[in-house]
C-alpha cells in the first residue's frame, strides 16, 4: 500500500470515473433516441475484485534507460471502452434499439452509485481531517 494514495482511494476514484464514463455513454444513447440505425452502447461491467487486486499490486512501468518507453497505463487505472449493448429488448422499424425506460433506469442507477462512492470518499477524507486535528 502506498501512503500517498491508499488503495481504497484509488478504487473509489476508479469507480467514480467508471460511473462518469457510463453516464456519458448513456447520454449518447438518449441523445440518439430518434436517430435511424443507431445501436445502443454500454460499458463493460465493472469488475470490483479485479480492480481491488490491481489497485493493490499493479506496478507501473519504469524508465531505467533513455531508450525505454514510458508506460501509459497508470497503476489501478483501467481501460474503459463502450461496446454495443446486446441486451436491449426492442428495436424500432428504423433499426434503432435504444429503449428509453431502460436507459432512464440505468441513468438513475449510475447517479446512485456515484453518490455512494462520493459519500464514501467524503467519509474517508473526514478520517484524515480528524487525524490532522481539524474539528470537522
Amino acid at each position, binding site marked *: 500500500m502506498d501512503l500517498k494514495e491508499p488503495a481504497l482511494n484509488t478504487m473509489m476514484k476508479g469507480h*467514480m*470515473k467508471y*460511473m*462518469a*464514463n457510463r*453516464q*456519458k455513454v*448513456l*447520454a*449518447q444513447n*438518449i*441523445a*440518439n*433516441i*430518434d*436517430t*435511424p440505425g*443507431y445501436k445502443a*452502447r454500454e460499458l463493460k461491467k465493472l469488475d470490483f475484485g479485479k480492480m481491488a487486486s490491481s489497485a493493490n499490486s499493479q506496478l507501473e512501468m519504469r524508465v531505467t534507460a533513455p531508450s525505454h518507453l514510458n508506460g501509459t497505463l497508470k497503476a489501478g487505472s483501467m481501460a474503459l471502452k463502450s461496446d454495443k449493448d446486446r441486451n436491449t429488448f426492442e428495436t424500432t422499424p428504423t433499426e434503432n434499439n435504444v429503449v*428509453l425506460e431502460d*436507459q*432512464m433506469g440505468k*441513468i*438513475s442507477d*449510475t*447517479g446512485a452509485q*456515484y*453518490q455512494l462512492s*462520493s*459519500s464514501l*470518499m*467524503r467519509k474517508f*477524507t473526514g478520517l484524515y481531517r480528524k487525524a490532522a486535528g481539524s474539528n470537522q
Partner: protein
Amino acid sequence: MDLIDTIHISSSGLKVQQDRLKVVAQNIANSESVGNREGQAPYRRKTISFKNALDKETGAQMVQTKKVGVDKSDFVKKYEPAHPQADAQGYVLYPNVNSISEMMDMREARRSYEANLNVIESSKSMLSQTISLLR
C-alpha cells in the same frame, strides 16, 4: 471531463428535438395553407431526420439534424366550389398534413426533450456531489 461531455451530448439532443418541434409547428400552422394563385400547389408537409455525428473533440456520438425534407405524399382534395382557389370541377387542394400524426410527433419530441433534460439534471447532481467533496 466526462460529466461535462455528458451535458454537451444531451444539449445536442435537446437541440435536435427543438428543430423537430419547429418543423411540427410549421406543419400545424400551415395545415390549411392553400396555394396563392390558381393552379399553385398548397403547402407541402415538411419532415425531419436525424443522424449521429462523432464529435472529434470528445470522441462522443452527438446527434445532428440530417435533413429537413418534404413529404411527397398526395395532397388532400376537397370539393369546395365556392372557394376562390377551386379548379374547374370545384375541387381545392389542401396540404398533406395530418394533424393527428403531427400531434403524436410533437408529443414524442417533448418526451425525448424531457429525457435529455433528465440526463443533464442527473449529471449536474453528480458534478455537484463531486464539488461538495471539497467542502
